[in-house]
């Protein structure tokens, strides 16, 4: 130590800490990360090669393909190939964003530099967004450069007159794709304990993205570029959802405290059982405590207290399911404008009760080869349950979208049939009262409830409750879904199936004869 004295200004000299997002901190973090990436030859060399050489290789390939196809007067195929090249030269450098983002938090953790960063006044939002932008910027610029090089070389070589709209579409599409990959990868990086684990989980991101790029390629080859806007819109929604989830689930405690990734099945099963037994408001306490502290299961309490409380807590899920039901009906009704049914296809004015009964006895035509179940209590019940549970399971991976689609589809069919009857001057209200209302009055609420909680199951990953880890939140949402399914949905479906087989046909015959 030298004898020089420390002359540090007093703390009052320091800029005061601002509430909200501190853009200076965010920008400082982004600058450092980008500079660090630019100094890493393992990132710079491959990105540079892909950015500069790959577009030129693609251009040569396009030239060869074009010449070959011209010989057979198939230039249209060549013209489709060139925009695909745009997509490819943009996507490859962008895929590096995944590598950088996956390393963002967990890499720092492995190098022991994370704690010092977490000890700065940077908030969770600044840390998350900083890492996200830093992971995105370099590959994004590389993608833009790659696309520009390819675009210019194609136009310069007079291979193709690149439409400006398509050029912008590909730029925008590459951006939102990159953002999806980065947002998801940063989430992965902030929830794993090693770069190895993060890389293993990366397949959950790269495989769907590769699949999406294939679909986009098909769309381009098909010449339906306008469909790319829809994909872009969907990806943008996903981006927003993932950024929100990333910020919401970012947990500096978990990043520092988690030492190893392991699947503790015993604890998971125990926790699930506790969540299932306990009233909803006890969940945060149950999460912390041992089994003795978990309230006893009471069936009466489930109906009197738990279910109403769960419904109130999941009112947005219920509202979403209700709106989807209404939208499905209206959508089906509206489809009549484009696809009207022939007048004899579904004419209830010539209803024949005997033929109707015979059809029910023999089975609905085509039911053996389609998804429709045989007309029996067990078959209808199992079919409905299978669809609802399957939809809930798939909701986990689709943020609830699949469950909503499975609700939307039958309601669209009902709306379509009602609309078709109305268009033909038949009484559509009578149709609903006869064919839908008897069992639907039980089945539709059951489906609504199941969908509402399936949506929550999908959304819980985006916004887990305070202090819950992603796994605990998922267990809680699953337990809530199972509780509603066991004690409300299944009884309703059973009774609905009974009504559908024994009561609905009677009502139909009664109303139409």
């Amino acid at each position: 130590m030298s004898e020089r004295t420390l002359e540090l200004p007093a703390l009052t000299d320091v800029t005061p800490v601002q509430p909200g997002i501190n853009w200076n901190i965010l920008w400082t973090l982004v600058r450092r990360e980008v500079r660090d990436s630019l100094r890493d030859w393992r990132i710079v060399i491959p990105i540079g090669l892909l950015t500069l050489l790959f577009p030129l290789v693609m251009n040569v390939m396009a030239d060869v393909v074009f010449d070959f196809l011209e010989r057979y007067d198939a230039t249209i195929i060549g013209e489709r190939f060139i925009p695909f090249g745009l997509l490819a030269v943009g996507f490859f450098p962008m895929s590096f964003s995944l590598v950088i983002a996956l390393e963002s938090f967990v890499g720092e953790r492995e190098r022991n530099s994370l704690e010092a960063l977490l000890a700065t006044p940077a908030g969770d939002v600044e840390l998350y967004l900083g890492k996200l932008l830093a992971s995105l910027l370099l590959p994004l610029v590389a993608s833009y450069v790659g696309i520009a090089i390819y675009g210019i070389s194609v136009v310069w070589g007079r291979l193709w007159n690149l439409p400006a709209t398509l050029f912008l579409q590909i730029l925008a599409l590459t951006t939102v794709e990159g953002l999806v990959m980065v947002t998801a990868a940063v989430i992965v990086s902030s929830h794993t304990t090693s770069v190895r684990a993060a890389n293993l989980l990366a397949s959950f991101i790269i495989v769907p993205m590769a699949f999406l790029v294939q679909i986009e390629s098909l769309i381009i080859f098909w010449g339906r570029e306008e469909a790319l806007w829809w994909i872009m819109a969907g990806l943008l929604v996903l981006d927003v959802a993932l950024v929100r989830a990333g910020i919401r689930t970012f947990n500096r405690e978990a990043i520092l405290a988690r030492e190893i990734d392991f699947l503790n099945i015993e604890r998971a099963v125990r926790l699930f059982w506790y969540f299932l037994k306990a009233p909803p408001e006890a969940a945060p306490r149950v999460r912390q405590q041992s089994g003795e502290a978990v309230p006893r299961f009471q069936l009466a309490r489930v109906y009197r207290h738990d279910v109403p409380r769960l419904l109130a807590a999941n009112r947005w899920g219920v509202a979403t399911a209700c709106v989807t039901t209404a939208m499905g009906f209206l959508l089906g009704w509206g489809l009549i404008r484009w696809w009207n049914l022939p007048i004899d296809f579904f004419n209830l004015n010539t209803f024949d009760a005997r033929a109707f009964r015979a059809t029910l006895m023999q089975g609905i035509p085509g039911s053996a080869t389609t998804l429709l179940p045989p007309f029996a209590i067990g078959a209808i019940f199992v079919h409905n349950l299978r669809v609802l549970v399957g939809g809930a399971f798939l909701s986990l991976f689709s943020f609830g979208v699949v469950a909503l689609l499975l609700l939307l589809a039958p309601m669209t069919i009902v709306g379509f049939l009602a609309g078709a009857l109305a268009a033909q001057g038949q009484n559509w209200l009578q149709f609903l009262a006869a064919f839908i209302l008897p069992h639907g009055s039980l089945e539709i609420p059951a489906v609504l409830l199941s969908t509402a909680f399936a949506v929550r199951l999908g959304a819980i990953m985006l916004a887990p409750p305070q202090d819950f880890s992603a796994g605990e939140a998922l267990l809680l949402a699953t337990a809530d879904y199972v509780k509603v399914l066991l004690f409300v949905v299944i009884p309703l479906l059973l009774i609905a199936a009974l009504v559908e087989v024994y009561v609905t046909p009677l009502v139909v015959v009664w109303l139409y004869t």
Partner: protein
Amino acid sequence: MAVVEAVGLTKRFGTITAVENVSFHVREGEVLALLGPNGAGKTTTVRCLAAILRPTSGYALVAGHDTRTAPRRVRHLVGLLTEFPGLYGRMKPLEYLDFFGAMQGLDAHTRRARAETLLKQFNLWHARRQRLGQFSKGMRQKMALVRALLHAPKVLFLDEPTAALDPEGAYQVRQAIADLRRRGHTILLCTHNLVEAETLADRLLIIHRGRILARGTIEELKAHVLGDPVFRVQLAQPLEGLPDLLGDVVSPLEWGPDWISYRTRTPTQTNPAVISRLQAAGGHIVTLVEEPRRLEDVYLRLMGAVP
């Protein structure tokens, strides 16, 4: 005035309780050592105090700011030296300090000025053109200390500052901490190095399995855990009936033909009486010394490692 105050601080990770109902304070200009074995909860306590972790229950104040409600402010008031320096290896010292200074809201001029002063202070100025990845372990730890000091924090939290260092590196870092202590910095030092705690700390807090076992100055702890000081008299020749001779002055602990040891709370009165009695009986005293009482004995006894 207490700069750091922890009240009933508890931190649980799932079913594991890392810190349980810990209360203490650190006064301005004081060095408090948090002493305990690996896994005792020292790092978790520091992370709670540095507003990196949110306590499960209880609270902590740093310069009057609650770590739960004003975490950013607290992180601004605190300088944290982590157990592993964890520097960004591709950066150079000035660039590295510039980054952390900017994260703390310092303007460019202040960042540069402080970085230069501190690098010179810690003998790192000569290495300013090297990448941090090329630094030795001792240099890295000193660099991390510079980082922690850069924004002139109100309080320094040093988590195992010498744990991963060789003796020379550890010495350098200890010297640096001693220097900071002389300059009146408030420091909370986490360590399991007893010599370090004894050398650097004003007060000790011994923590084990997330709970505080003992607290006080080193002398207070020694007195509390080991009892009154023990003195040993060595005579030139054997003296017959040595214990009986001193029986009414002190209670002898152990003795031999030419030596005796005893415990006393009032050595200023007892020791002259012992000397007089022995001399009157014809004994020639070679030495009268207080038996060394090491912090290690206190620590091991508290940990239950020795009876």
